[in-house]
């Protein structure tokens, strides 16, 4: 507990330092107009129409990220369970997931545009990295139960399904949460990049438009919002993971 508090303080100190450096660079105009000061960006959030625009965009992006996260988790877990139960499939599924992950999202986007459409592309691009991470973490999580506990289940005459439900699945739960924590930031990135290919709304669209129109303050406000949202999700999932890890191991 004391260690945790120290780490928190340490992190907080780092964040504070970053914000001070940012504010200094911005207010002294060290990088010209491309990096506005924190105070100037903060002003954006106080203008009602800009705030409304950003909230709408953020809601859309986060929804895409959430859909992608959920779909990636469900699919990744399902495929990991399949590979776990049907051993001959494992090698093939391992390779498939590596190949899916190796395809650059940006190269995949045009294909998605013509298949699932502009508005579903962000969610799809969010789902792909999540799927990969979840597949890997859940696969190893399912194998993490101690051999001794495996023996106990065998000796009690438990069926394969019973072993999965009562031993391997609970043992894999911390790994699943860990996978979600790691991949949630990738889901937000996937959603934003996906929006660049012509979604009707979203933070990605705001970032792209403000960049092209040189509205740097609004652009920074959108980026800051995206970063805070993904960091918050990371923090929440981290807390969930800690709880589950304590509870399930």
């Amino acid at each position, binding site marked *: 507990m004391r260690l945790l508090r120290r780490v928190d303080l340490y992190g907080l100190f780092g964040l504070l330092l970053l914000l001070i450096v940012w504010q200094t660079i911005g207010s002294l105009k060290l990088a010209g107009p491309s990096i506005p000061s924190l105070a100037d960006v903060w002003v954006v959030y106080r203008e009602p129409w800009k705030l409304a625009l950003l909230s709408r965009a953020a809601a859309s992006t986060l929804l895409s990220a959430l859909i992608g996260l959920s779909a990636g988790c469900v699919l990744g877990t399902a495929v990991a369970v399949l590979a776990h139960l049907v051993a001959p499939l494992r090698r093939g599924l391992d390779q498939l997931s590596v190949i899916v992950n190796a395809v650059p999202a940006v190269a995949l986007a045009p294909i998605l545009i013509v298949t699932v459409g502009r508005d579903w592309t962000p969610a799809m691009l969010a789902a792909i990295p999540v799927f990969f991470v979840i597949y890997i973490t859940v696969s190893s999580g399912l194998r993490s139960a*101690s051999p*001794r*506990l495996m*023996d*106990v*289940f*065998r*000796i*009690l*005459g*438990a*069926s394969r399904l*019973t072993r999965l439900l*009562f*031993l391997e699945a*609970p043992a894999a739960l911390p790994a699943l949460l860990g996978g979600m924590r790691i991949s949630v930031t990738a889901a937000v990135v996937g959603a934003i990049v996906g929006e660049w290919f012509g979604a009707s709304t979203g933070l990605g669209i705001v970032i792209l438009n403000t960049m092209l129109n040189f509205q740097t303050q609004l652009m920074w406000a959108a980026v800051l919002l995206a970063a805070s949202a993904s960091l918050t999700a990371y923090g929440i999932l981290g807390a969930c993971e800690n709880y589950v890890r304590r*509870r*399930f*191991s």
Partner: protein
Amino acid sequence: MIKLSGVSKEYRMNRRETVRALNRIDLTIEAGEFVALLGPSGCGKSTILHLLAGLEEPSTGSVKIHDRAPATLRAAHQLGVAFQDHALLPWRSVQSNLELPFQAAGIPIDHERIGHLIVLVGLQGFETARPRQLSGGMKQRVAIARALALNPQLLLLDEPFGALDAVTRRHLNHELQRIWLEQRSTTQQLTTVLVTHSVEEAAFLADRIIVLSGRPGRIARDFRVPFPRPHTVEHTRLEAFHRLCDELTLCLEPSSLSLNIPKINGLVEES
């Protein structure tokens, strides 16, 4: 009745070498007997237990429980095991851990039986505690209760108190005998095989003690414990108990097998 005939077990170390853990073991255990397998570490006593549980197959020879393969007993949920490490599910409470045998067998959970087991092993008030909140001795009590949950025909105990301190261990040995006698009075037969390297534990708990010699494991001696049940603290103070322990200890000496140990009067030795 359990019958091991000509059982050897070899483990492959690498392409050229194999290690022989057990060498031509012939052993018959009567139904209802409490047998202790005593031997130095590495003598293959845990291997025998694994063979009886059907977790491993013998390299040669056969293991039969009531004339059938051990796996049959397992499939019929008639096998109970407690290991040195409790092997409880860490995310489940005491109560819930005791529900596991029922769930594994796919039969309705008998809450009355679980309540009885909790009383039997003396864990009233700890029903909702998780394993990490219990002491080492309490965890072993839960493990033993879990092993007994379905009234097994065969109970295997693999150094269940091996990781505990001497005082707790002695106390739990008394408790185990009480639990065992109570359990035996409700089921007709509770054949029990205890693996241990503690001489006193074997002499106190068992009806019969099989001494194994090390590498490869084979049966060196076969003792019958001459005290009537229940074995009490008074028994452990008897001259005969000490002599039995002394002789067992001598048997465990690496050099004893080549020596001709004089038989001590008052002890019944078989084979």
